[in-house]
């Protein structure tokens, strides 16, 4: 009995310290992986198309409602891609060209004193998603980017949705990149109840415009 009490007295501070350490904020941490698409963006076809536009997402939670401005919990971006409709040697649908600029304004995502800033180097693939609820069209595309804060080169993919006009409250966008500051970075909303097509998050500003090309 005495031994058990001693053991408890010894282990309790260690346990408290471990819990406190685990709760400590990691200043340069990136978003934890929150999952993959649940119901959409599984079926694709190689057809020529174009998606352009940009805007704002308030993630988390990634709904159509803006977070209070003083929280600085929002992301802004511009993204443009042209899919060739051709299939490459590796079976991927090839992109003609494109570009991505992404800024994460969340205070916890500042790296080296600046907001997290991702800038595309090359767009290597672009495929049309055929299993979404995006009324005007959806695309899955990506390639490589530079993490401007660190100089890292990362692979990335985006889930891009045009669900009519206006873009706010209708269109969606989500991104996954690795490595960003050595970790997986995701702004994805894998919630089937969120319009229009998970895992893209709903725009709180801006617009995405999809159209086929010939």
């Amino acid at each position, binding site marked *: 009995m005495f031994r058990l009490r001693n053991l408890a007295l010894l282990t309790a501070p260690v346990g408290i310290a471990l819990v406190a350490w685990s709760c400590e904020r990691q200043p340069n941490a990136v978003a934890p992986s929150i999952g993959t698409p649940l119901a959409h963006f599984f079926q694709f076809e190689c057809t020529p198309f174009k998606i352009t536009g940009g*805007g704002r997402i308030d993630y988390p939670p990634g709904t159509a409602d803006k977070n209070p401005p003083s929280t600085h919990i929002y992301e*802004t971006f*511009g*993204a*443009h891609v042209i899919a060739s409709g051709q299939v490459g040697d590796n079976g991927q649908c090839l992109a003609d060209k494109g570009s991505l600029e992404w800024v994460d*304004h969340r205070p916890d995502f500042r790296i080296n004193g600046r907001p997290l800033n991702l800038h595309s180097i090359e767009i290597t693939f672009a495929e049309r998603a055929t299993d979404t609820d995006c009324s005007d069209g959806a695309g899955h595309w990506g390639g490589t980017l530079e993490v401007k804060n660190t100089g890292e080169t990362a692979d990335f993919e985006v889930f891009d949705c045009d669900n009519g*006009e*206006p873009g706010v409250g209708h269109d969606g966008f989500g991104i996954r990149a690795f490595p960003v500051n050595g970790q997986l970075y995701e702004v994805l909303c894998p919630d089937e109840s969120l319009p229009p097509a998970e895992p893209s998050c709903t725009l709180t500003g801006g617009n995405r415009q999809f*159209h086929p090309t010939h």
Partner: protein
Amino acid sequence: MKIDRVRRAIGLMGLVLPMSLAPASVAGQMRIAATAQAYGVSVSTPTANQTSPYAVLPTGGAMATDQGQSIDVAGLVTAQDAFAIVSGDADPEYGSSAVSSATLGAVSLLNGLISTDGVVAVASSSRDATGASSDAEGSTLSNLVVNGAEVADPAPNTRLDLPGVGYVILNEQSRTGDGWSSSGITVNMIHVVLQQPIVGLLGQVLGYRTVGNIIVGSATSSAN
């Protein structure tokens, strides 16, 4: 005689009708365009003239970006973490779309007379077969203080006087286009108009004249 007249009339219609229809459709296609520009800070005074960072949509569409980590214009404005992003495209068949955004972190104007720790300006325009529209959704100011008073979520075109300086327009929005074949919008989140009094011979103030402009967080888009 009458038959000749009818023949001539039909001939004339045959010439004129195609001419009157064809240019209209060609002209309609020619007018398709998307434009966008964004900038973080613009100062225009007799002693300083600077815009930074600045991005403008290239002809033919796609995307353009610019950024500045730390901006200081002639002691009038300091700003951190400024980004300007524009993107868009115009297609004769599917219509045109343009989006621009300007974002900044901490901003101080006129030695702290106006300050904010977050500016987002977003302008979006689109045109398709159903019409044209623009909005500034997503534009916000965070922890804005003007002349010592907090200003939360200012409505579009909120004007506040700045004694001895001029006035400021917050969330300034101006629109262009007819809403059917074209639409455009400019949003300036902070627009300071610098003024000086016009003094009469007897020392009385006759009015004010504008001597400069400072704009922070500007986004413009249009589609037609």
